[in-house]
């Protein structure tokens, strides 16, 4: 058994038993925090597909999280008001609304990523970074002025999406559902990076010119990956909307894009599992520092700079390194 497998096994056991531990210790907040970590982990891992495997530095990933969340918010609003178009009649069954809402959220985010990606991928390097940021900011202002859906105030959900077999309004069920989504994503994503598609993308990320010289139309693969990552971020957004039962333009703000990037870096870029660890560390650090100081950003900033300068590979490779320490 490699250390990576051991780590994943332990993590799986820990995450499976967590709700029981939370109930025994009479601390339901732990569960809510853990769900949030899982959701941010999913969003960060989807960004890692872009950063770590596609060599696309998107500084606008929050936009797709936000679109996924808004899709849920908007559909729930119409569900509550009972004025859904007939095509979406399935939603009216509140016990199964999630079966349509969650895929629609993913679809919406994917479509947005497809269109924005097609524009952004005309550029590379620094242009790409700035343009993804600018488009995310444009969507941010779009949702702020989207008065019908709350504008800057955001939208409150009356309840969480309904699904057969699980009741998302129950925090434990919701936690396991998030865990399921994350595990499913990580499984599919790790298959993806070793598939033909993934091989070509990793090659193009490593050495774009060589890949083109071999006959690869890198643009198409990049766009496909950008769309997949956007859709996955949309799923994270849909879960986030259900988690806080609230959506607002704040989700699309560029600081969230930056934070997701920090999570990827902290956990280890190009490792898929690392960003989940990064999300846990970042959110717990935020919780922890917040308890001691209002000015936690003043510590987080330098910490981040130091992490970039000295811990280049992130935590996950450190955790699973085969090297044994003596003592």
């Amino acid at each position, binding site marked *: 058994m490699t250390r990576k497998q051991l780590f994943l096994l332990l993590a799986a056991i820990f995450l499976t038993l967590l709700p029981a531990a939370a109930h025994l210790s009479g601390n339901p907040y732990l569960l809510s925090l853990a769900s949030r970590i899982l959701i941010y982990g999913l969003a960060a891992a989807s960004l890692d597909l872009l950063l770590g495997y596609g060599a696309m530095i998107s500084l606008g990933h929050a936009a797709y999280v936000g679109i996924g969340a808004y899709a849920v918010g908007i559909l729930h609003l119409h569900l509550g008001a009972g004025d859904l178009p007939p095509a979406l009649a399935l939603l009216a069954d509140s016990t199964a609304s999630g079966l349509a809402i969650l895929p629609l959220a993913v679809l919406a985010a994917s479509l947005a990523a497809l269109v924005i990606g097609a524009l952004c991928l005309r550029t590379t390097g620094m242009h790409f970074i700035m343009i993804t940021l600018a488009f995310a900011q444009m969507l941010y*202002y779009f949702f702020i002025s989207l008065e019908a859906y709350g504008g800057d105030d955001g939208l409150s959900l009356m309840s969480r999406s309904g699904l057969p077999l699980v009741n998302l309004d129950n925090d434990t069920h919701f936690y396991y559902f998030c865990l399921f989504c994350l595990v499913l994503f990580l499984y599919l994503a790790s298959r993806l990076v070793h598939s033909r598609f993934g091989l070509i993308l990793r090659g193009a990320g490593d050495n774009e010119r060589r890949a083109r010289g071999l006959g690869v139309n890198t643009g198409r693969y990049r766009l496909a990956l950008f769309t997949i990552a956007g859709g996955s971020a949309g799923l994270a957004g849909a879960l986030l909307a259900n988690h806080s039962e609230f959506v607002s333009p704040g989700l699309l703000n560029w600081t969230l894009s930056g934070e997701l990037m920090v999570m990827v870096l902290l956990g280890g870029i190009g490792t898929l599992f690392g960003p989940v660890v990064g999300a846990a560390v970042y959110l717990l650090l935020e919780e922890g520092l917040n308890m001691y100081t209002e000015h936690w950003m003043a510590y987080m900033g330098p910490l981040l700079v130091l992490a970039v300068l000295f811990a280049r590979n992130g935590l996950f490779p450190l955790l699973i390194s085969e090297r044994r320490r003596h003592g």
Partner: protein
Amino acid sequence: MLLFCEQLLNGLQLGVTLFLMSAGLTLVFGIMQVINLAHGSFYMIGAYVGATVALHSGSFLLAILSALGASWLAGCLAEALILRHLYRRRHLDQVLATFGVILFCNEMTRIIWGRQPLFMDIPAALAGSVELLPGLPYPIYRLVVLAVGLAVALLLWLIFTRTRIGMQVRAGAVNREMVAALGVNISLLYTLVFGCGAMLAGLAGVMAGPILAVEPGMGESILILTFVVIVIGGIGSVRGAFIGAVLVGLVDTLGRAFLPLLLRLLLSPATADSVAASLASMAIYIFMALVLVIKPKGLFPAHH
């Protein structure tokens, strides 16, 4: 027509402020190939230091000088302590490190200067307005900002076309290896360019001080506008930055001023107002997307 002239001036004035921000940043991007998110923080530092000095000394000139000094110093420090170690690293590392710098600077201003915005007054000599055309009074201070921006643009143009160091910098933006081959002290050149870029941002900050609220986080909103300018103008091109800045300033101002009127011709007033407000806030991004479709590397790409 008078209104249109006034809005045109407003657009130009916003444009030159953006130019002060983007001129330095586009060179940093072009020459050092470093993405620097913390440029907005230099703008903020300029505004804060300027406002503080103006408050205590009462001299606007002193405020400007100290703001220039402080932002220059901050720029050189950031370059020497952090960015210098990142030149050969991934863009991603640069993004993250400078993101950390933003978090730190915003929180530090909050710790040092407190949570409330700072006050900075227009110097008495520049207060009031002049009548440019009959029926068109315009604040003197804004004219001064416009003039300073244009003067800086002219100065940069002279430096880049007439001086040896300017040629080197420009050559560096086009081809880095070439500059190294010419035997220029790259490390010194980098620090110089970075410091001057920060200084220009600080100048923009202190000039904006009397017009805008001096508050934590003021750098980010202008930073994103600056990015839009650079994307439109083309990385590494000062000329591109100037034209991009003016275009963005005009599109933003004219969009805000005239979109509601235009849309009222088509829609009911209430709908027109809200649609116009949304469109106006997205106008520059839509403009950027259009430029991008036609010229992916911006209007004046420096690299071939």
